[in-house]
């Protein structure tokens, strides 16, 4: 049994899942638009939460949030479920598929056999859409892959009940009912305001632009604090969070720039075109950071100097992002 689900490849899992589900339910939507309305852009450096034993550095809002916010802002009714046991989780998934409903699921990539081996780490925030079942295999539309994939039921069960940070607990979600009318401009504005708020206004030093500054300060101290080997591991981890499968490049800054460009047309607001260009420029800065950081990791530029240089690059990202989101906020007031 397979649902006729138009699969499109995108850069990021959750915004791709959201865009593909919206598209299936009759609302044509780009990934960038889903990401922007869902307020996906973010930054946080949380040294006391560990991913693969290294500090959590994230360029996006937490798993589940993009889908939840994008659908809420568009007035779409969705159902979300978590489960106490793998059996009940699997029964409910099968029941929904039988009823012809594509189902979004949060999974841990370590257990997904269709992932490139080099990418199979314990990361539990990966989203995909289950679109059918044949024998003991599930059919899956995973937006970061070119084609739909198959996954043995036993593996998907482990992936849905992955443990550790961001444990999905069998979490699934699906669209229950679409509204008759959408207020797209309002949804876009609300998504933009949300991102400006989390990047600028949350009074915690770990989050948003302040989080970037915190990372810059801490990163400069890594060589002293951790020694060379550990500080290089910390640095490599930041690059992976920023660039690894799924961010579309530069820790989602390019996807967001694409969203601002699209939003400029919908809102008929030319200021957003310029802000989109600035967002691209910030993304390019982040790419410079990743490139230099990777050279440091490879031992081509070690020593305190390169860490200071990297910290300076991050500070520059923070300065530009602060100005960008301030201006973005005021661009909405007409």
């Amino acid at each position: 049994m397979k649902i006729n689900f138009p699969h499109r490849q995108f850069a990021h899992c959750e915004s791709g899942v959201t865009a593909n589900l919206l598209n299936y339910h009759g609302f044509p939507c780009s990934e960038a638009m889903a990401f922007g309305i869902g307020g996906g852009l973010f930054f946080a450096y949380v040294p006391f939460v560990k991913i693969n034993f290294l500090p959590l550095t994230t360029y996006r809002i937490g798993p589940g949030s993009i889908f939840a916010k994008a659908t809420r802002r568009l007035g779409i009714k969705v159902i979300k479920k978590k489960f106490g046991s793998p059996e009940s989780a699997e029964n409910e998934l099968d029941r929904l598929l039988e009823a012809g409903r594509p189902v979004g699921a949060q999974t841990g990539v370590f257990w997904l056999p269709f992932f490139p081996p080099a990418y199979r780490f314990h990361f539990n925030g990966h989203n995909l859409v289950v679109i059918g079942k044949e024998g003991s295999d599930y059919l899956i539309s995973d937006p970061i892959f070119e084609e739909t994939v198959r996954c043995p039921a036993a593996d998907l069960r482990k992936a849905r009940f992955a443990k550790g940070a961001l444990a999905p607990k069998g979490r699934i979600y699906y669209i229950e009912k679409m509204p008759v009318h959408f207020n797209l401009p309002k949804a876009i504005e609300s998504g933009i305001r949300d991102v400006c708020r989390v990047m600028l206004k949350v009074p915690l030093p770990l989050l948003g632009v302040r989080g970037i500054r915190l990372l810059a300060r801490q990163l400069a101290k890594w060589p002293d604090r951790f020694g060379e080997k550990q500080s290089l591991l910390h640095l490599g981890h930041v690059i992976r969070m920023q660039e690894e499968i799924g961010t579309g490049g530069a820790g989602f800054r390019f996807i967001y720039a694409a969203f601002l460009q699209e939003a400029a047309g919908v809102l008929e607001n030319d200021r957003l075109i310029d802000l989109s260009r600035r967002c691209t420029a910030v993304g390019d800065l982040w790419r410079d950071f990743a490139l230099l950081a990777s050279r440091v990791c490879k031992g081509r530029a070690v020593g305190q100097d390169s860490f200071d240089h990297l910290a300076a690059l991050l500070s520059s990202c923070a300065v530009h992002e602060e100005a960008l989101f301030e201006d973005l906020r005021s661009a909405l007031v007409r």
Partner: protein
Amino acid sequence: MKKNDVPQHSGLLSGNREVNYAVDVDGRYILESSVGWEAKNIALRQAWEAIADELTVVLAEIKDGKKSALAYHMVKNQMDPALLSQYSGVARWRIKRHLKPAVFAGLRPADVVPYAELFGISVDELRFVPEELISPLAGLDQVEADNS
């Protein structure tokens, strides 16, 4: 990033392509396929080297009789006692005991079944460790060679 600047450094994607966002000559955003980027390949490779290093240490400790075979399988699956405990349902203090060779050797098969099931291997395989490190990077190098 401009369309022409989208990197095409093949590496660790096992023949998959991923989508990058870039602007075309008219400044419009497009989705451009990429086989990888050197900066990412370096960072990924580094993460696997760290796992390989840890495995080497663990194998030496097992050889010296300081740790049980469970330690090898735990590290191979990128776990520590805390995560292994969450996955297997075995209490953390018991896992720490099971990491001792003498304790592990005395366990009944039923005691180690949760580990074997989790790692997808048999109870016999769980008691076995390779003589020398089979580097996780070996597989990756193969992938890289196939792609280039």
